[in-house]
């Protein structure tokens, strides 16, 4: 029954449009009219559609018990009445165009208001469920607790039934992986951008840039697959091999440790994430370096500086705020990245800064908490919203700061 509604509404709208246009044409004969017949048609269409939609939405929200058939009949009636009313008002001096255009602008405004509504929706859903979570787990314990084991048991007498929600190890893990990713992405991305904007010829530039764009377009789940099945095993074998060499020697302890290193070490997820971020960092930095005025370069060359001296002593200091902003944006990306860490990082919440250990991140835990069997009211699933809120606030802060910096930087050279 519901699938009949859209065709019904469309048919009604088309009928109102054609009727209105015809009526206007007939009544405008020989008179100088304010609006074109089509605009009268659109006027009639709005008058039939808006009441019909209002009735439909009103019925759905206010009296949900009303059947779809009754609601559709009411909508049709409202639409027909509206159209008849509009027909009765059509005359040459009616300012149909202004009315219609007013509606169009209103509609466009509504479209852009959706963006604000999305933000409101994000904040509302995160805050609402987080409040319920923080009702059972104190905020301080969540932010500073060092024990994370969200598996609440079903029976009270089970071992570890309490469930601990200290998220500090998750923040530490996220931070560690972000750090590793930035250690890869920042120098490589920045140097790539410098080379592309200062050294590369047009041909080289136009071949390398698309390649970087491809790297940026590869879905993160693909990076995750690559990290989990190629990079992880390769790194493990490498470190296990070194460990086997060292074991029994003077560095026996280190050797024993290296022999036990696992696929899911932080280095793998962080490294692959760093590669993923290279094109992001390089394209942002490229824009920023290009925004430095040519006169600064020319001045430096005129003083006899080489290109590299110009870059390191003139361009980079001038572009520093912009580059810093780009790095902050990349960090926010790294913190919010989900698939690579879900597939290649571990689940063990550990408070460590050792890149060879397995750590877990905020996003991994959100996915783990919400993809199992879930009953929605347990603190276990609500914890995911607490983590989500924290993640949202941190990335939002980073983005706002970064955009501020980049914005003021841009204005400086405009």
């Amino acid at each position: 029954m519901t699938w009949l509604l859209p065709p019904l509404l469309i048919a009604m709208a088309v009928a109102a449009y054609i009727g209105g246009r015809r009526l206007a044409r007939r009544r405008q004969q020989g008179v100088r009219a304010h609006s074109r017949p089509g605009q009268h048609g659109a006027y009639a269409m709005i008058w039939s559609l808006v009441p019909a939609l209002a009735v439909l939405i009103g019925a759905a929200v206010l009296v949900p018990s009303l059947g779809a058939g009754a609601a559709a009949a009411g909508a049709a009636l409202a639409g027909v009445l509206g159209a008849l009313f509009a027909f009765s008002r059509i005359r040459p001096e009616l300012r149909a165009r202004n009315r219609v255009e007013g509606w169009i602008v209103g509609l466009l405004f509504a479209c852009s208001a959706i963006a604000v509504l999305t933000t409101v929706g994000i904040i509302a859903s995160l805050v609402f469920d987080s409040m319920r979570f923080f009702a059972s787990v104190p905020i301080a314990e969540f932010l500073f607790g060092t024990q994370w084991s969200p598996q609440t048991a079903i029976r009270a007498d089970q071992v570890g039934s309490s469930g601990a929600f200290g998220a500090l190890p998750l923040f530490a893990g996220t931070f560690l992986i972000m750090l590793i990713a930035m250690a890869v992405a920042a120098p490589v991305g920045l140097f790539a951008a410098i080379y592309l904007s200062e050294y590369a010829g047009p041909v080289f530039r136009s071949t390398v840039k698309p390649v970087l764009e491809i790297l940026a377009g590869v879905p993160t789940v693909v990076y995750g697959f690559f990290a989990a099945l190629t990079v992880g095993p390769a790194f493990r074998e490498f470190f296990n091999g070194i460990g086997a060499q060292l074991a029994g020697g003077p560095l026996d302890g280190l050797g024993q440790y290296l022999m036990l290193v696992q696929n899911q070490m932080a280095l793998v997820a962080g490294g692959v994430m760093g590669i993923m971020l290279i094109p992001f960092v390089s394209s942002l930095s490229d824009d920023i370096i290009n925004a430095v005025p040519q006169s600064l370069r020319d001045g430096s060359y005129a003083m006899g500086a080489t290109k590299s001296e110009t870059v390191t002593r003139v361009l980079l200091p001038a572009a520093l705020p912009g580059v810093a902003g780009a790095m902050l944006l990349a960090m926010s990306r790294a913190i919010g990245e989900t698939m690579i860490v879900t597939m290649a990082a571990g689940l063990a919440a550990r408070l460590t800064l050792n890149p060879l250990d397995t750590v877990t991140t905020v996003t991994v835990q959100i996915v783990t908490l919400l993809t199992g069997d879930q009953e929605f009211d347990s603190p276990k699933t609500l914890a995911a919203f607490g983590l989500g809120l924290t993640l949202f606030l941190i990335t939002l802060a980073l983005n706002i700061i970064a955009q501020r910096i980049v914005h003021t930087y841009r204005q400086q050279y405009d």
Partner: protein
Amino acid sequence: MTDAALPQPGSPPVDETVRADRMRAGLRRRHGREIRFRLYGLLAIGVAVSFLLLLLGRIVEQGHTAFYAHTMTVPVYMDPARIDRAYPQGTNFELLAAEQQLARFGVVDDAAGSKATAMRGLFSSELKFIAADRIEAQPGLIGQTVPIAAPLSDDADLYFKGEISLDTPAEQRRLSNEQIAWLDRMRAGGQVESHFNGALFTRGDSTEPELAGVLGAVIGSALMLLVTAVIAIPLGVGAALYLEEFAPRGRLTNLIEVNINNLAAVPSIIYGLLGLALFINWMHLPRASPLVGGLVLALMALPTIIIATRSSLKAVPPSIREAALAMGASKTQTVFQHTLPLAMPGVMTGAIISMAHALGETAPLLLIGMVSFVPGVPHGLTEPTGALPSLVYIWENASERAFHERTAAAILVLLAFMVVMNAAAVVLRRRFERRW
């Protein structure tokens, strides 16, 4: 003569040639630094490019074997004593075929039938359905010997692809030495042939790797993108038109702009949380359905489309608008009859690219329930389905080794779709882009 040109008293007089040497040495050092700096730049680009090649190379290497598969043809004597004419589906055709194959090899089974079970493990369970369909279509075949061609089981298939061999340690393979010997005899007997793996493209997901395909996920992704496009493109273009052409400069407009820029940078997993809380828990839309997936992806794609549309609207020179206004067109007429059509190629390019991004997005889909196993092919917008990226995630987590090559193959399919979409965007841009 100034004092500066005179040799400083106390310091030894510097010979001209020494100074020139020093300068030359300094210059050499500086040029060396220049070359090194340049090399670092090249190295950085080299790292990025070689990594891309490594990534794609590894995926092709892992995935290309999934595009062909092996079929075995077994002559099966349709024993009237064991087939129920009224209900052929109830017959254990796999066991029938396995026992007859053993008899042909001259292997005597033990009382428990363990050898027949081992032989049966080499066929796909699909054999049963193929045979039952044949009998149902032609009941006259009962009592005759019918050659049945059925896929091999995933492990046997991997053996013929060379992924497993007798040298593989026994605990890492699920085939016994005896089973491998049988497979070799069957191949020598011309029973096994290799062919294009059509099942990969014509079937939905399955728990058995040899029967698992990407079709269900492709259709799920397509339905989802349809929802996303229908919602996000009109809304995004409308919002961009308002902000770029109609909005009065003021606080409200500013707020909306800042908002959109921030939304574009919100991590995708947050959109998943929003979808879970808003669409599933609050509106009670069906979990894991293309409708919910499409809605979430639409919210995600919205800021990107708005930003792309705005920049292509900005690229339309003001003279066009002024000319239209001067001819007596209203503001709305100017926008819809002149500015927007001229900006359309850019708008479409941006829309296609953001759809391609939405296609590859995984994290939000996991949160709205697209991690569970959905067999077959979806039929509607409100039924649970898989999607290509979430299928990659599910298969990557599967324990069967044969799913690894299929994961890589699914990635190749996903990448192929993205390449097509991006190529369409590039073509659009090349053909219709106008420089003013």
